[in-house]
């Protein structure tokens, strides 16, 4: 392995994760147990699904702030489709996924067709989608889902939490697509130099619309899992989840200016944040202290990475 390869952001991050796991393991004998790790995976899945697609979004130089609101809106609509409109639950979930992907598609269209910067466009839809969620729900929650539905969020499949399998599948597909396909290379090209990408004949707008739609779809899948995990539907679900996802992506080494980033990095970022949250709590640190520490780790990691990559272009 060359020196440069060794100093990749992902390598530094992986070392940090190992250090964190080691230190946290010293603090509590309940941290590194199979039960706890599976449980943490369960708690991480929703943010993880969103963060994986968010990696694509940020690699193109964009951002999607509306994912938390899409999660809330989809969750409410799944409940309304099922309870108020009397659809069978699988159909209601299917329609929820369609609505989620469509909400992402709308983001994509606003960004590409009307040339609105992604930050502004999704800030607008963040308010819009949350407003729809609150309007439709009228501050009431939908509950009383059938028992079989809880398998998705609370149950196990082949010895592991059900949603971890979905998460693993999405992560593997996303990693392959980003690293080894034409679409992945187009994503990097758009983020590195959009004008050059256009003149090279790449379908820039198409790629962006696809990515934002996928982001909406990921939020919708997360919504279904979330509803199943907590067994109820509320319009304030997913509030602030976009920031957790962006934190994981940026911590994972994806450049906020686009053109750089990997799924592995995002996964490491997710694992680091989740282990800190859980491990610190088990070590007796209260939630407010944990929040401060995660912020500090984020800044520190980016600083180290930037120092090491001082010579490289950012």
């Amino acid at each position, binding site marked *: 392995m060359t020196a440069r390869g060794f100093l990749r952001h992902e390598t530094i991050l992986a070392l940090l994760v190992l250090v964190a796991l080691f230190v946290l393991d010293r603090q*509590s004998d*309940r941290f590194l147990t199979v*039960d*706890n790790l599976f*449980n943490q995976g369960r*708690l991480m899945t929703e943010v993880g699904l969103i963060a994986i697609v968010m990696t694509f979004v940020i690699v193109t130089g964009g951002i999607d702030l509306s994912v938390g609101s899409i999660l809330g809106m989809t969750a409410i*609509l799944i409940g*309304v489709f099922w309870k108020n409109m009397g659809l069978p639950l699988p159909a209601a979930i299917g329609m929820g996924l*369609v*609505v989620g992907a*469509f909400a992402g*598609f709308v983001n994509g269209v606003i960004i590409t067709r009307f040339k609105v910067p992604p930050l502004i466009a999704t800030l607008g839809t963040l308010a819009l989608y949350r407003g*729809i969620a609150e*309007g*439709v729900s*009228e*501050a009431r*929650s939908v*509950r009383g889902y059938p028992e079989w539905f*809880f398998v998705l969020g*609370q149950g196990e499949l082949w010895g592991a939490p059900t949603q971890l399998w979905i998460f693993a599948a999405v992560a593997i597909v996303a990693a392959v697509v980003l690293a080894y396909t034409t679409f992945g290379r187009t994503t990097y090209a758009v983020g590195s130099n959009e004008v050059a990408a256009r003149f090279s004949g790449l379908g820039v707008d198409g790629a962006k619309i696809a990515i934002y739609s996928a982001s909406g779809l990921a939020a919708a899948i997360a919504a279904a899992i*979330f509803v199943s*995990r*907590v*067994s*109820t539907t*509320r319009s*304030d*679900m997913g*509030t*602030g989840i976009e920031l957790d996802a962006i934190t994981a992506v940026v911590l994972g080494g994806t450049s906020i200016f686009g053109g750089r980033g990997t799924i592995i990095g995002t996964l490491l970022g997710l694992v680091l944040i989740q282990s800190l*949250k*859980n491990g610190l*709590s*088990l070590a007796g640190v*209260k*939630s*407010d202290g944990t*929040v401060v520490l995660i912020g500090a780790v984020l800044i520190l990691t980016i600083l180290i990475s930037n120092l090491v990559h001082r010579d490289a272009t950012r």
Partner: protein
Amino acid sequence: MLRPSLAAMAVLCLSTGLATAQSAWTGGDDLPTNPLACDGTPATPVSVDYDGGEPTNPPDRAGKAITVVDVPKLIGDGYFDATSKGIAEATAELGNMTATTDGPVEANIDDQITVIDNYITKGVDGILFAANDSVAIAPVLKKALEAGINVVGYDANAEPDARQWFVNQAEFNGVAKSLVDALAAEIGGEGAFAIVTSTFTTPNQARWISEMAAYASACHPNLTWLETVEAQEDNILSFNQANTLINKYGDELKGILGMTSIATPAAADAVTQAGQCGGIAVVGLATPNAMKPYVESDCVKSVVLWNPVDLGYAAAQVLRATADGTLKPGDTSVQAGKLGELQVINGSEILLGAPFVFTKDNIADFDF
């Protein structure tokens, strides 16, 4: 394909609502009421079978030192600072129980679930909680019960089978009685008043209004209800609505009842600015901090709520009694230290007592 789904969404947005139930007073709900006796004789409790949960194979904790975590809706909030103060008072008094308060920094269902989950993994003897959502919190609390942990709620309930006991700070009919009694005392038992609420469909407010209507018609027949106005829990709208009431009814209006922590201070502000202090009584549900200026200037005489310090104290006492086995399913009361004997109601709830009335004499002692 895309257009129909947009249209469907629009129809959904429009078709909901519009079905507001009518009761004696606008803004109430249709549910049956259960007014208390005028002289405050406690109602004979209807015996309901215990409907709470049970921990699975808990170790024998009777008299032993136990560690407890208190997970309020959020931390860093004056109200829940007061409940944890009450919990600390109880643990200091008991001596064989340590409690830490930890919770989400925002009132977020997911963060709260995660906090509780981590404490189950860490291993505690008891969990005290105030739920951000009664159903969403249920799976993680059931997990705690399965791990043999004693679970007691306060302030905001969970599904009954997800916890053992819930300390209920005030029943709807109790709050209604306190509000109407305070109003009647201030305006001399006779006169007209109006209500400022959040919206006609807000569940708690609608319940209180219905209970007030039932209690007033039985115990204060000379009070005349004029109207109920909606103010959406919005400061400016609440002020404007109260102002409109003052101008609309003039001398006829003797009192305003505020149903939320936003509406009550806004109504007091409107009365102050209209120079009607003493002429129009303002009574309502509100937190003491919001009302201090008006209570200290004598414009408002009574603010009705419950005492959160006592609430936390009672919750800790109930948890200790549950761990000791002195409070068992089927019991009708529990000894709660300095609060004395508290009643068991609705199967597995413990009633804190009559609501607390903040007045000029005691309001400075509270900071939330």
